[in-house]
């Protein structure tokens, strides 16, 4: 009698299609959770979020320009990136540290697939950073007075930095199986960026993850000249390249990985070369035109007789400027009360974002310069410029005022504010409300002597209507050239000033 074996013995391992992919995904989920709960990563995210929330609104107040707000999201994620570099390196070396490498060898996942799972955990950290960046930028973009256009490529730099640093940590774990390598790389990372920021020139600075500009100028977004898209391509290619090389080093020498690495290398090279191409002749021409002949590209808005000309992106600001001009005019007496102004937005874009250039005052009558930033100190500065033009007739003449006319000028500039003393402090260069000081304006500034400050302070101490009436009653004499501070005080029925009354 023979025993019939009903079924041949089959292997217990089932090779379900996509099984190892699922295993990589499961491991990636586990590693992501672990990576995001490491103490350095948690601390870095806490510091990043705390810093971002604390700074939110401080930079531009309620009037952000989105082409600047997108760049402001770039530097802080570097901290998260360094923490991710350290933590992912330690995670990749974990099985070796605990001597469990041999146990893993019998599992379905070879080492290169485990490396891929670690790489995916870095992607999770980058995605979390992307959410933070989107929140930071979205908050600025949702402000009612936000203007301009953000760039997706600029916003991508933060998450890509985290991705790049993370894959660098992963590759390092594959190359140097020692726990000391990653901390040393972090030390280099921390200080070498500061070092290269200081030394690099125009082309090589784009090799760093986040490229900071020297100037805090706000330019129209088409005149910025930042190769943001190429830079994002370069960063993405580099991050991908490092990650794929880490998989290759771990033994995943599959054709698809090699092809991917070659593609990533090509991306990096294309991005790296294209981003350092420099400024195109068209851009230089456009910048020159916007600087020297802004009227050719601006659109104008007429309101109550005055004209407000702005670069297209600043169209909505016209109403804010008109509000200030109306209030300044309402305090003026004589013909200035009815004088129509031309408010002209001006920039010096010829140096791009690499330098700040002071604007020369305009010489056309009744034309006032306004800058590209608004809110905070920019409001009383513009009000002072508008008041100067109302009194002196044109900006160049207003900038050379150096007599008692400063008193009605500054009264017009700050008298209408809800807290005139605070506005006065903000518009003066040294933040003082006594003594002599320079007064800031969109173009060149003014100089207030100690005596003029005394008279103005006395005027501001009066009830607002009373002070306004006194200024309007003597408008002609107050705004006559060469009037002294003492004479202005006498006209306004205020105590004579004791301080120095001499312009420097």
């Amino acid at each position: 009698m023979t025993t019939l074996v009903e079924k041949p013995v089959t292997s217990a391992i089932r090779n379900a299609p996509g099984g190892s992919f699922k295993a990589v995904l499961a491991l990636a989920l586990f590693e992501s959770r672990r990576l995001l709960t490491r103490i350095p990563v948690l601390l870095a995210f806490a510091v990043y979020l705390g810093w971002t929330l604390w700074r939110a609104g401080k930079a531009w107040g309620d009037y952000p320009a989105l082409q600047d707000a997108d760049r402001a999201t770039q530097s802080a994620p570097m901290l998260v990136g360094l923490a991710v570099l350290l933590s992912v390196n330690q995670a990749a070396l974990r099985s070796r540290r605990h001597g469990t490498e041999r146990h893993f060898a019998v599992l379905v996942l070879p080492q290169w697939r485990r490396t891929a799972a670690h790489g995916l955990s870095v992607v999770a950290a980058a995605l979390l950073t992307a959410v933070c960046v989107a929140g930071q930028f979205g908050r600025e973009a949702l402000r009612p007075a936000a203007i301009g256009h953000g760039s997706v490529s600029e916003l991508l730099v933060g998450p890509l930095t985290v991705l790049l640093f993370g894959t660098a940590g992963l590759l390092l774990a594959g190359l140097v199986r020692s726990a000391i390598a990653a901390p040393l790389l972090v030390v280099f990372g921390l200080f070498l960026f500061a070092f290269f920021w200081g030394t690099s020139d125009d082309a090589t600075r784009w090799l760093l993850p986040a490229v900071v500009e020297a100037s805090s100028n706000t330019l129209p977004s088409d005149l910025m000249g930042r190769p943001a898209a190429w830079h994002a391509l370069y960063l993405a290619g580099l991050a991908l390249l490092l990650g794929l090389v880490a998989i290759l080093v771990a033994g995943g020498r599959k054709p698809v990985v090699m092809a991917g690495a070659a593609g990533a290398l090509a991306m990096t090279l294309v991005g790296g070369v294209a981003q350092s191409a420099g400024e195109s002749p068209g851009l230089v021409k456009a910048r020159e035109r916007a600087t020297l002949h802004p009227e050719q590209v601006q659109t104008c808005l007429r309101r109550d007789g005055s004209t407000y000309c702005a670069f297209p992106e600043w169209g909505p600001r016209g109403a804010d400027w008109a509000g200030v001009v109306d209030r300044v005019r309402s305090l003026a007496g004589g013909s200035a009360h009815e004088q129509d102004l031309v408010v002209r937005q001006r920039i010096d874009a010829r140096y791009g974002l690499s330098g700040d250039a002071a604007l020369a005052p305009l010489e056309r009558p009744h034309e006032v310069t306004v800058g590209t930033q608004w809110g905070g100190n920019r409001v009383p500065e513009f009000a002072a410029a508008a008041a100067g033009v109302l009194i002196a007739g044109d900006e160049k003449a207003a900038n050379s005022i150096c007599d008692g006319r400063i008193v009605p000028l500054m009264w017009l500039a700050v008298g209408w504010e809800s807290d005139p003393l605070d506005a006065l402090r903000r518009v003066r260069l040294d933040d003082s409300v006594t003594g002599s000081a320079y007064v800031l304006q969109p173009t060149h500034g003014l100089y207030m002597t100690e005596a003029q400050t005394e008279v103005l302070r006395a005027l501001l101490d009066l009830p607002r209507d009373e002070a306004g009436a006194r200024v309007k009653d003597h408008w002609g004499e107050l705004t006559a050239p060469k009037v002294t501070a003492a004479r202005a005080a006498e006209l306004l029925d205020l105590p004579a000033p004791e301080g120095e009354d001499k312009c420097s």
Partner: protein
Amino acid sequence: MFLNRQLVLPVHRTVPWRGIGAAGAAGLLLAALTRTGETAERLSLYLLRAAILAFAVGLAFLLDDPARHTTSTVPTRRPVRVALRTVLVVPAAAAWWTVALLLVPPEVRPPVADITLEAGAAFVLAVAGAAAAVRFSEVTRPGRPVTGALLTTAVLAMLFWPGRWALFVPVEDERWAAAHERWGLVLGGAVLLGVVCAIEPLRRRVRL
């Protein structure tokens, strides 16, 4: 005493010289960067501080001892063994520091005594951190977590250390002298921490 002399060679063999050497090389590289140009010279103080941090990272691995649990029963007590390791590494650290200082061009070298105080404080803090990790846990290799803590502390201190008690000041700053009195306090605190933590507890903490 005889026993201690016998211990020198075995302890020397367990000191992680390769890690310390790698950190030292990285530090010297950072210090040597000060010779690469004018901007680098301006940054010499920061590069030297980076070099100090790099070497401190290496020193955090000083108390790594995979055989820790087997040597806890030897008659030589832990303070002696820790002290022996420290004594072994001191000449190396001193030599490294001298070379690092000499790599910085003399005209931009920060005041030697003061910057040495900073270096000493950082180095002792790293070793004391490792001693604390050994004292309060059962880990055999405290280097890895301690470097993480050291780097985190360094970054947080540079970002958020209140200006009233400034530590990281530039040479021309008027707070330089006061800052180095505070560095002295940091050094003293680190030495104290290290001495306290080097003592072996009588009972092992039993985890239930």
